[in-house]
């Protein structure tokens, strides 16, 4: 006999299938990050960059499996559970939390891909001078502890979700990107700038990336993966994912065009690497509101992010936070920006999830929640990352020696240059 249950189980299968595919797209973003970061740094450190991106996924996946997932999603959501979960270690047992119709393993796969994204953002900002050992330890801790706690607060049903007007961060402008970006800022400033990055006069000097092809290929890969990142965050398969995809496309395009135009106007030439950053800035920016904004909102957010990223890169240059790939600007600044924009551009109202934004007649409630969310996450990540990097600095050490840095991390940290023209 045909039952409602049969149909529901079909829908559940559909949901699980889509989220697994979306997870694969998000995992593909790991390659995108590696490419962007490798392209925008020097050839003598290229193997190190790829190694970091490969290993942070591997270490992060195990760490998130063993503890991270339990902290983010496990256990009661009241009391201390509003800040910190604690059930479902190793995904073991039947009571392990999952979302909606999703199988726990499918939901985990999607979540682990997000954890890896948050972790990997830092590697670009700390490129070309960080000890590999310190980086591995950092990536274990962010995947096991820092990121899961942040997720707990919102997606895990914690205190930010329990606000009267819940904080709304659809696919993680704040939870994933800003978390990565703030940790990146802390890491980069703890490390100090690369040798030669500032002249004797204190003015920044350009250290050009070694391969625009790698960098822009990486942008394309990230764009492709982002459809899984945003449209997958619906956590179910239905028509809604179409509008999310369109918003993603429009914001990406607007971000790239804005950054291109701005560099064109400022320096007479459209800058390729910055246009790539603009694309990513638009994507990061729209991630929080990918579901609630409409096309016009997505374009405005994209344009805004594309403009902001250009100025943010200059700003961090000036304050001597040396971020070779612009990770702090793209993920940190534009992540915060995009999240706050939800408070202005939200065009949807959904009980207990999100209100309309200021520009759509919803009053300031959502905006206030957005600011609370951004600020609290930023502070938490800043403090914990600061502690983490301080401990690493005092123990294994954070920065390679001068000779290592001059001659390249590839040879000194891994024993072998990334490029060889041996015959």
């Amino acid at each position: 006999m045909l039952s409602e249950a049969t149909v529901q189980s079909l829908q559940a299968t559909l949901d699980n299938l889509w989220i697994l595919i979306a997870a694969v797209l998000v995992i593909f973003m790991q390659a995108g990050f590696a490419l962007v970061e490798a392209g925008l740094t020097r050839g003598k450190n290229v193997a190190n960059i790829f190694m970091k991106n490969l290993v942070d996924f591997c270490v992060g996946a195990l760490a998130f499996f063993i503890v991270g997932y339990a902290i983010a999603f496990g256990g009661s959501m009241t009391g201390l559970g509003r800040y910190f979960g604690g059930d479902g270690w190793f995904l073991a047992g039947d009571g392990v939390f999952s979302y909606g119709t999703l199988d726990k393993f499918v939901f985990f796969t999607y979540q682990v891909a997000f954890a890896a994204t948050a972790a990997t953002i830092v590697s670009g900002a700390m490129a070309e001078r960080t000890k590999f050992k310190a980086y591995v330890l950092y990536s274990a801790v962010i995947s096991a502890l820092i990121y899961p706690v942040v997720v707990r607060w919102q997606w895990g049903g914690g205190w930010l979700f329990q606000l009267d007007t819940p904080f709304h961060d659809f696919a993680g402008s704040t939870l994933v990107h800003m978390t990565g970006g703030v940790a990146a800022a802390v890491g980069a400033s703890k490390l100090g700038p690369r040798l030669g990055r500032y002249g004797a006069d204190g003015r920044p000097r350009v250290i050009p990336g070694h391969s625009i092809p790698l960098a822009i290929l990486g942008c394309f890969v990230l764009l492709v993966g982002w459809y899984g990142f945003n449209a997958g965050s619906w956590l179910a398969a239905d028509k809604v994912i179409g509008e999310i995809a369109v918003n993603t496309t429009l914001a990406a395009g607007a971000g790239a065009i804005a950054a291109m135009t701005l560099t064109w106007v400022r320096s007479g030439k459209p800058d390729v690497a910055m246009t790539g950053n603009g694309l990513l800035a638009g994507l990061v920016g729209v991630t929080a509101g990918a579901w609630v904004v409409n096309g016009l909102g997505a374009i405005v957010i994209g344009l805004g992010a594309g403009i902001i990223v250009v100025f943010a890169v200059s700003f961090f240059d000036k304050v001597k936070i040396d971020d070779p790939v612009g990770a702090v600007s793209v993920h940190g600044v534009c992540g915060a920006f995009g999240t706050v924009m939800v408070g202005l551009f939200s065009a949807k109202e959904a009980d207990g999830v999100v209100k309309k934004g200021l520009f759509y007649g919803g009053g300031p409630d959502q905006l206030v929640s957005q600011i609370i969310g951004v600020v609290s996450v930023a502070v938490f990540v800043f403090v914990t990352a600061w502690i983490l990097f301080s401990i690493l600095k005092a123990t294994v050490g954070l920065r390679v020696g001068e000779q290592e840095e001059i001659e390249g991390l590839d040879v000194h940290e891994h024993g072998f240059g990334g490029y060889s023209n041996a015959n």
Partner: protein
Amino acid sequence: MKLITAIVKPFKLDDVKDALKSAGVAGMTVTEVKGFGRQGGHTETYRGSEYAIDFVPKMKLELVVDDSVVDTVVEAVKSAAATGKIGDGKIWVADVTRLVRIRTGEEGTNAV
């Protein structure tokens, strides 16, 4: 025996090589180099920041030749490499006291 070294613009390499072939030159060795000189470099912009590139790509040619043909060779390079614009490059000549062909062990003029 003289060693003639010439610095030329990269896109002129083919023309110079053809001119030298016509002038009867049997061999030469070419290196990609970067030049600093009157031509100056240029300003590049990367991610919104300007920076100066002082060096321009050039090609270096080295030819060991018989004393008798030095003038012909210098002339050939000069006319094939000149564009009249700054940065066309230099030619310089130095003495070589011995020349050996590795394959045969021949020395001197026979080794050219």
